[in-house]
């Protein structure tokens, strides 16, 4: 990649930058020689560490206990919000999982039963048919049947009821913020940093304040889910509204739309296909949070996964994990189909003539199914709960498989691991940790200056400086090392797969299914088998990060190469290029901006796994956040969380700036 850059760039522009980099690197090396004279450049002086974490702790304490808004305190306000969210949640949960109860706690008496599992399956199938066709209906029906047959029903319904509430909040909230930002450029600029922070500061970092402000239980978990899952919706909304062609907006204006009409009748309908990408992301990210939400008290499938793995029942963990993936697939496919659905065409003019059930056949059928199963479940318990005797499990199979691999292949796997660890990972880690922070901050700023000018240089430099000033430099560097290694490996695997998938439709479809699964299957599920095979430590952590971060590397490469304009390929063929030449001289350079975006997303995904890596014993920022959580030290957690976010932002801004420049040079924009 870098070869392509230097080869294409005009010679006279390379030189001053080259000189600057040589000087900067020489200065870094020089620092090593005078190491004893400037110890502060290598290790940030402890007494100068900015006590930000204590300020944050104090501020949060005040916010949670002292902040009075006059009529009520801040905490009463947040408790009111959680009460609001609790209302629809209570309905969903009663309907799907608990049944309608009278009273609370163990005294509660069931007044009316929950929906029978038969009814729920029937209703999703009806939705599938309504939204598209029998094929979709069968798919979602099978997904839900899995939940019943594999004994995941009760947990899955708890998870589903919080997801069906959290997703609309995330989508509508994201839409509202996006529209707010669309109205003016300045607002958009003000929103963006918050979006970055919401997505990259690990949830564990602000968990304790959330629990205190919103109370213990599922609502807090939902709020954490919404915070994490909303940003993509905002981004997509901004993008989608901007992409609406000017002619469409003009014609709306000419026909005399008010501002509101223009928004709801013109802009949003035309932006709908892109907006649906945002909905998809909200669904996926919400289900991503299921495990962490269950640590806060959401229960459900996440809790099943956690407890199964704590007992090392790997098979049970996999089954519960797959249930999460299937829920994701169902919700995603249904929401996509609903969005693409053509409105019904009413054929008969005399509408009053047709009976109600005929005008609303799906609704009637749904009500019929509900009523039928409710009455049947009073007689036959089969309808109430899926019979336990008919549940199946493949748990033993998975446990045996892991055991077999462990006993048979451990030595080979261990050898490969040790080779990589001793020859690449450990040296790279030592190298990064040995560099003076002063020099690294300078180099990051220089890169910013070269790619995006003074403003970018100030931003990247300041963010890097922050990590040193708050005393988190070594842990930040370990994070950079871990993420860096994972991203390099994920790119080395993902980009070739993406290139191949771009040229082969069958392979493309298979790979899509695999990466969808990788992204929704909770990483905890494969983390434990990975630990069994590779022991606790950096390597196991890195493998888990790679598995999760692989998806964008593949997806964007595939997409980028497919988007190369066909006339360019034809021109290359006409010019007598070989296939290899077409790939390396035409396709790859043209797809580079898109691939860079993929790498950018790979970094983001990798960083979002940092906290999870702490669960298998790394010593990075993830661990810092995790320690802070278990010590209920809010300030410490947030500061470490900010460091994670800042690494992400630096990487994002540098890569985006590079991508923009490449696009400009290629004449793509």
């Amino acid at each position: 990649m870098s070869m392509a850059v230097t080869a294409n760039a005009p010679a006279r522009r390379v030189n001053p930058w080259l000189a600057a980099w040589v000087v900067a690197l020489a200065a870094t090396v020089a620092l090593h020689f005078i190491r004893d004279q400037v110890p502060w450049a290598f290790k940030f002086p402890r007494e100068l560490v900015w006590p930000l974490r204590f300020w944050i702790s104090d501020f949060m304490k005040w916010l949670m206990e002292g902040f009075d808004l006059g009529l009520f305190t801040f905490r009463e306000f947040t408790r009111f919000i959680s009460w609001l969210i609790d209302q629809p949640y209570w309905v969903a949960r009663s309907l799907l999982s608990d049944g309608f109860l009278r009273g609370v706690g163990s005294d509660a008496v069931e007044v009316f039963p929950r929906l029978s599992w038969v009814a729920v399956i029937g209703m999703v199938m009806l939705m599938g048919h309504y939204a598209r066709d029998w094929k979709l209906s069968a798919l979602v029906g099978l997904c839900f049947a899995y939940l019943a047959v594999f004994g995941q029903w009760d947990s899955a319904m708890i998870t589903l009821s919080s997801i069906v509430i959290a997703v609309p909040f995330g989508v509508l909230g994201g839409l509202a913020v996006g529209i707010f930002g669309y109205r003016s450029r300045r607002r958009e600029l003000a929103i963006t940093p918050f979006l970055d922070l919401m997505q990259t500061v690990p949830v564990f970092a602000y968990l304790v304040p959330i629990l205190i402000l919103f109370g213990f239980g599922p609502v807090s978990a939902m709020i954490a889910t919404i915070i994490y899952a909303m940003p993509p919706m905002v981004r997509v909304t901004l993008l989608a509204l901007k992409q609406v062609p000017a002619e469409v907006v003009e014609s709306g204006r000419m026909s005399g739309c008010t501002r509101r009409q223009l928004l709801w009748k013109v802009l949003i309908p035309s932006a709908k296909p892109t907006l649906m990408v945002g909905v998809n992301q909200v669904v996926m990210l919400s289900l991503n949070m299921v495990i962490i939400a269950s640590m806060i008290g959401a229960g459900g499938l996440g809790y099943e996964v956690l407890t199964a793995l704590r007992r090392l029942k790997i098979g049970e963990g996999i089954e519960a994990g797959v249930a999460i993936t299937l829920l994701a697939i169902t919700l995603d496919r249904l929401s996509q189909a609903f969005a693409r659905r053509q409105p019904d065409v009413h054929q008969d003019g005399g509408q009053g003539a047709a009976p109600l059930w005929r005008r609303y056949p799906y609704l009637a059928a749904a009500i019929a199914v509900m009523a039928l199963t409710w009455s049947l479940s009073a007689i036959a318990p089969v309808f109430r709960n899926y019979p336990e005797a008919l549940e199946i499990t493949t748990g033993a199979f998975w446990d045996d498989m892991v055991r077999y691999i462990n006993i048979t292949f451990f030595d080979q796997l261990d050898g490969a691991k040790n080779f990589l660890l001793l020859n690449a990972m450990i040296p790279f880690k030592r190298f990064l940790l040995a560099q003076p922070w002063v020099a690294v901050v300078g180099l990051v700023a220089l890169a910013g200056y070269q790619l995006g000018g003074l403003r970018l240089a100030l931003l990247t430099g300041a963010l890097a400086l922050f990590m040193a000033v708050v005393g988190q430099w070594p842990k930040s560097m370990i994070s950079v090392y871990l993420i860096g290694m994972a991203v390099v490996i994920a790119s080395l695997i993902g980009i070739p797969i993406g290139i191949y998938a771009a040229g082969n439709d069958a392979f493309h479809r298979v790979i899509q299914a695999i990466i969808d699964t990788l992204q929704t299957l909770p990483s905890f599920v494969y983390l434990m088998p990975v630990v069994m095979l590779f022991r606790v430590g950096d390597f196991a952590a890195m493998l888990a990060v790679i598995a999760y971060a692989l998806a964008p590397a593949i997806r964007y490469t595939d997409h980028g190469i497919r988007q190369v304009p066909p006339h360019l390929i034809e021109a290359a063929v006409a010019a007598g290029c070989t296939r290899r030449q077409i790939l390396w001289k035409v396709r790859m350079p043209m797809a580079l901006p898109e691939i860079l975006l993929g790498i950018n997303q790979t970094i983001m995904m990798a960083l979002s796994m940092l906290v999870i890596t702490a669960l298998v014993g790394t010593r990075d920022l993830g661990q810092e956040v995790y320690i802070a959580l278990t010590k209920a030290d809010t300030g410490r957690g947030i500061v470490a969380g900010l460091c994670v976010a800042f690494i992400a932002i630096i990487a994002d801004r540098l890569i985006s700036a590079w991508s923009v420049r490449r696009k400009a040079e290629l004449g793509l924009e």
Partner: protein
Amino acid sequence: MIKTIKYAALAGVFAAGLIATGLITGLAASTSATAGVESKDPIILTIHDWTGQYVTTHIMGEVLKKAGYNIKYQQADYIAQFAGLQTGDLHVAMEMWETTGKQAMDESLATGKTIDLGETGMDAKEEWWYPLYMKEKCPGLPDWKALNECAEAFSTPETAPKGRYLGGPVTWAGFDDERVEALGLNYEVVHAGTDAALFAELESAYQRKAPILLWIYAPHWAVAKFKGEWVEFPEYTDACYNDPKWGINPNMAYDCGKPFGWIKKVGWKGGEKKWPGAYKAIRNFKVDNDEMSQMIVEIDLEGKKLDDVVNAWMVKNEARWKKWIAN
């Protein structure tokens, strides 16, 4: 056919009506109180993510139910729960281990918003542990002095020639780094992030009969499933941790084994006034390590259902728990 659907639709409307009436009557009647207990508001017991705690909490919950109290179980993080116990969002935590939760508990008690509800009768044991098959490679065990001679046997390529000791999660501070230094052990301490990861590694090593030396705590199913022994260090005293002069190494503390610890119950202060009888019963709660380990094994290894195991305990120990709730 049309008629059937029509009737079905009617039935649906009827069903919806039923729900509505049910809810209204339900809400109206929910204030009816039962005599005998101070308050019918639910007492919220916290649930964490290990089986033993699940069992103790459910036994307590069942006993309180028998006494007429209203009980609710709420899942909450082991340490983060203190925030809820202080505000009264949560009421009782049944297992707070001295070995892992003492610091957080002391901080919380100092606020005056939570109270110590006494010991559960169980002892938390934690120490370095090895599977029995390692004794062949290191015959001097379980005496800790043998550890240095066998460092090579316990090593991995990353740590060689030092031995590798897999410590507990960093958050469950156990002073292992200090212990290694004070006792001059030729070992590298590797921290597992979670106990799930810890036992995953043990399971893997055990399947292959591979060397492993790690931190284990009890009561836990692993002690029952895997055959092994605790390393015997110089016995713990308070002086060992506080006074460097104590023990083999005159310059450093921590030159001994780990302490046995209590497991305590903690509660929201306000609950004492609201449900005095229930708090008394919680204070009376006592079980011992053996019966707890037995129940953990039945659930985690034999695959019995939690509720069945708890019910069996209730039946068998009726005389015992009746005393807890007796006036």
